[in-house]
């Protein structure tokens, strides 16, 4: 069993037990919930988060003054979301098995296991900023980066542009958190918070396609025909819609900038 590639989450749990002596049970989930709730609470109380949320009105004003348009689509109280345990475990399945090019050996950047998984999975706690226009993404990135510098926190920016039509900026903020250990006392861990910045239109599409993406992620075997040629498939419509909308958003920016030049 240990060298047979697990096909689904049930086989993965069995593999974890046989290969790494790790049992995924109700107590694993309870501990996960205890750790992640603590981190969320501490993050909400942190100077970084307080400053970021308090500054949102100021950013809105700056952008409006600069462009004549609104920056954010929603209010100024962003929510922090905790990844549900099942999605978290699925992500470790992807890292250890589905995307592991070295199978049956460990991935190049090591197995993701309970002794390191809070530091290795970088989107356990995330938030989302939804901007109206494409240039709002770059604007928000610079603001978040600037607060991170003030608080001497690491910040990595990843501009996502995937083959399957997903466009967004993901910022990963590194911060140390004190978490409860299993029996008692605490330990400090390095933890990543994910800040997603995307446009209103891309977010609408993402929500519509969420279920489709979830199903794709669980699948180990790839389709025989490339989705780009399978015009009857869900992927064809979904993925190209993502690309088209990104192009349209680029065009909107161009028109906006032309109008601005004409006024000047």
């Amino acid at each position, binding site marked *: 069993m240990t060298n047979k590639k697990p096909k689904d989450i049930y086989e993965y749990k069995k593999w974890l037990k046989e290969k790494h002596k790790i049992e995924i049970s109700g107590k694993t989930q309870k*501990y996960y*919930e*205890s750790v992640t709730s603590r981190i969320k*609470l501490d993050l909400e109380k942190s100077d970084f988060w307080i400053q970021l949320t308090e500054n949102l009105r100021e950013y809105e004003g700056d952008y409006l003054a600069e462009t004549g348009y609104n920056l954010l689509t929603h209010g100024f109280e962003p929510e922090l979301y905790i990844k549900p345990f099942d999605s978290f475990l699925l992500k470790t399945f992807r890292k250890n098995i589905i995307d592991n090019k070295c199978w049956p050996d460990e991935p190049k950047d090591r197995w993701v296991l309970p002794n390191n998984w809070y530091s290795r999975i970088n989107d356990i706690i995330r938030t989302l900023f939804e901007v109206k226009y494409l240039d709002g993404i770059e604007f928000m990135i610079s603001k978040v980066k600037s607060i991170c510098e003030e608080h001497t926190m690491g910040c990595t920016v990843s501009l996502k542009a995937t083959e399957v039509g997903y466009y967004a900026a993901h910022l990963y903020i590194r911060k140390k958190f004190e978490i*409860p250990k299993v*029996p008692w006392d605490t330990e400090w861990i390095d933890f990543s918070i994910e800040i997603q910045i995307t446009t209103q239109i891309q977010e609408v599409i993402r929500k519509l396609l969420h279920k489709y993406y979830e199903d794709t992620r669980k699948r180990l075997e790839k389709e025989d025909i490339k989705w780009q040629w399978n015009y009857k498939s869900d992927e064809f419509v979904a993925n190209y819609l993502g690309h088209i909308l990104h192009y349209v958003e680029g065009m909107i920016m161009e028109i906006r900038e032309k109008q601005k030049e004409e006024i000047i």
Partner: protein
Amino acid sequence: MRKEFIKYLVSIGIITKALRERIETIYKFYQEIYPDEITDIFITDYIKEDGSREYENLWFFSEKNCMEAKQFIIKEDFDVTPIKKRIFYWTIQKQNYDFKKATEKSRLHLRFELDAGFNCVFKAAKENCDYLKIIILKYVVPNLKE
């Protein structure tokens, strides 16, 4: 809320009005569902590196059920499970605790499993260990499945 519950909260350092009111609200919620049944209270806690105390989950007990309010300070997440003769396994880990009188260094961790597959986890620090001991003797040991 019962006087002994308030006494318990004070003894483990819950003295702020806001926190007491939060617990009172949850108590009333459970009382609404299980009137006259609640006989005991317990709050899981642990000590941070700087010596401060963190409270995690709030529990109420009755003869038949245990009721949890997970991460009660920030969440509204409740569940109830019957315990009467349904516990088939328990495990305790302890540190600097003689199971008689807790000291500043005492730590106690309890986990029990119910036949329905649920896990109940409790941790206690300092004087709270004495209260967890009572919970163990009153609700866990007598409810082991025969």
